[in-house]
């Protein structure tokens, strides 16, 4: 499992934030391009942006940096792709959502609830023999949480794949403070 320091020193993954026209088939175009050029997608998340004409696809790829340049250029050739930014994992904030149903007898349920509270997760549903919890946060934090839940017996687990935005640099942060919300 990747520790935080490992992730910091050796980014083994790349995050591509791809702004696309919100049109039918655009996801298929993007994902089949990866398949066609022999790249593996580690995770992928799509959602509309503030502009209803555009969607943002956040793709996490495991690759060396030089072939990444090629896939980025190929991606950019897709007519529906408007903008691509590569987010350096060290300079971006990444978030992901995890939901899990864990099998626990009623007497042990308290341990899972406690664990969830420590991680600042949520209890979504409680049954006689099982409990469903959710957690959003950095992928590393989700990894840790998942590992701990495993000890109880995960019945079902779903992760969204990460979304990411660049970290605001010092100047931008200060500006944001000075001028309030960006207009």
């Amino acid at each position: 499992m990747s520790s935080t320091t490992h992730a910091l020193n050796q980014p083994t993954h790349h995050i591509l934030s791809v702004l696309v026209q919100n049109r039918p088939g655009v996801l298929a175009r993007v994902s089949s391009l990866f398949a066609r050029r022999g790249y593996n997608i580690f995770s992928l998340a799509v959602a509309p942006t503030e502009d209803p004409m555009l969607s943002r696809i956040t793709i996490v790829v495991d690759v060396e940096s030089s072939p990444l340049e090629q896939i980025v250029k190929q991606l950019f050739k897709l007519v529906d792709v408007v903008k691509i930014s590569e987010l350096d994992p060290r300079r971006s904030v990444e978030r992901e959502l995890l939901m899990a149903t864990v099998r626990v007898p009623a007497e042990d349920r308290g341990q899972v609830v406690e664990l969830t509270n420590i991680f600042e997760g949520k209890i979504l549903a409680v049954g006689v023999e099982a409990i469903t919890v959710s957690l959003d946060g950095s992928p590393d934090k989700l990894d840790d949480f998942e590992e701990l839940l495993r000890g109880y017996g995960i019945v079902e687990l779903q992760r969204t794949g990460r979304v990411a935005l660049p970290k605001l640099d010092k100047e931008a942060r200060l500006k944001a403070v000075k001028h309030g919300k960006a207009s």
Partner: protein
Amino acid sequence: MTQKITGAQALIRALELENVDTIFGLPGGCILPAYDPLLDSPIRHILVRHEQGAGHMAEGYAHVTGRPGVAMVTSGPAATNMVTPLCDAYMDSIPMVCITGQVPTSAIGTDAFQECDTVGITRSVTKHNELIMSADDVPLMVRQAFHIATTGRPGPVLLDVPKDVLQNSMNWHWPSDEEVLDSLPGYKPVTKGHPRMIKEAARMILDAKQPILYAGGGILKARAADALRELAELIDTPVVTTLMARGAFPDDHPLCLGMPGMHGNATAITAMQKSDLLITLGARFDDRITGKVATFAPDAKIIHVDIDPAEQGKVRRPDVPIVGDCRLVIEEIIKAIKDLLNGGEKQQDISQWKSRVSGWREQFPLYYPANEPGEALKPQYCLEQLRDGAPEGTILCSGVGQHQMWSSQYWKFNEPYTWVNSGGLGTMGFSVPAAIGAKVGRPDRTVWAVDGDGCFQMTAQELVTASVERIPIKVAILNNSYLGMVRQWQEMFYEERYSEVYLSPELPDFVKWAESMGCIGIRVESPEEVQPAIEKANSIDDRSVVVEFRVDAGEKVFPMVPAGFSNDDVLLHPDQNGRREFLR
């Protein structure tokens, strides 16, 4: 004022407004509505015998005119028949617009009769494709298709049109250029090269001691042949023209070294290998050019001009990458060089390099052993005779195999857009339909198709199209009774173990077949018959002619850089091998 018409009428009107003069196609259920307004249109429709033929005809047309070729076919099997030409056009950057019928929108996804996921199937073999879901979208989609197919790196675009979209009525509106551009926020090809990179390229060119101009098919796409010539003459630097660039620089120009690559000539291959600067113009370091990449032109710096940023650094990292249109960039480079020269800078003396190159040319001309009386006819001899007998301005098309390589080697291409072949995909069956398309595009020119006996049998039926539509072409079949190129590999790399490459010397009877398709058929078996047959073929203008040359099955294409070999280890014709040491 808007006017209600059907989606089909809008489609045909849009094609007219895009200045389409010819559509190659074949109708069927789902595309039927589009064929009705076609009856009232000035656009010529050429009815093919197989949809693959329509696609290659559109390619041949585009090759020689520079205008996008247009093909129109129905859904399902017709669309799948179109996959090969689309891929061919994609690999060779041929502008093409293909329209396919589709089942009605309500039936999409139900496995309806002749439904297939055309957009899904063709996604990776088109520059772009679209399923049109509303008749109102037809004009904009057509405009987008032509814009995308013809700008940037050209390529095929497919529009899939459901039957009800063709039938429904719509409000006609012809979008302005601005509307088209605004509708494509993610499509902005860069055409002007970066000024700093251009300056750097100019300086590097003047500093080079052993420069070579490496010209690819992009020169032709960018209509940059004149610019290339001006640059070559300005810096007095030899030019190699890749398989896709034959004709981009005249073969009879003293600076022209001809074709490099797997079956290039020894001089072109070696000059690239030994150069200290490859001025790469619209070429993409294809594996058939580089041989083993790790040992390709090891001492060369690279200037790489290409309109497609993804080609920069894909195979070989350039020292000076320039993204832009070849013509515009070359013109800027010329200007930058002249500025430096006017400012008192001098170009390196490259006379030693040039004399070394001339030495190779003298030592290693293209070579085949001459026909001895009574021996089987040499295919290279047939090509030389075809070349020498060809009327001025003849366009040459070819299939894929040995005959293709000999065509490229032995023809003299002195004019751009006179060579039509399938380079990237290597599609057997390309030549006959491509030649028909070329003749439609340039009816004023003689069009010869050099084909193999194997290739010809894949698409020969289009000669019926040629006869019925009165499109007279000439076909030279180099019949060696073999899938010759594959036979050559088996001879050389599989210890002469011939597996499934022997066709038949007698079957089919090409002359009778030609006659049955409305063509004149001529058979040539001995060297004496070659010239008269070619003369006769050239004298016939009112119908297509097929000349079958029965040629030596054992002849191999040389030189050869076998796949995975270094260009340093090019195999020469055995008779030239004694002089190998001169290749330094």
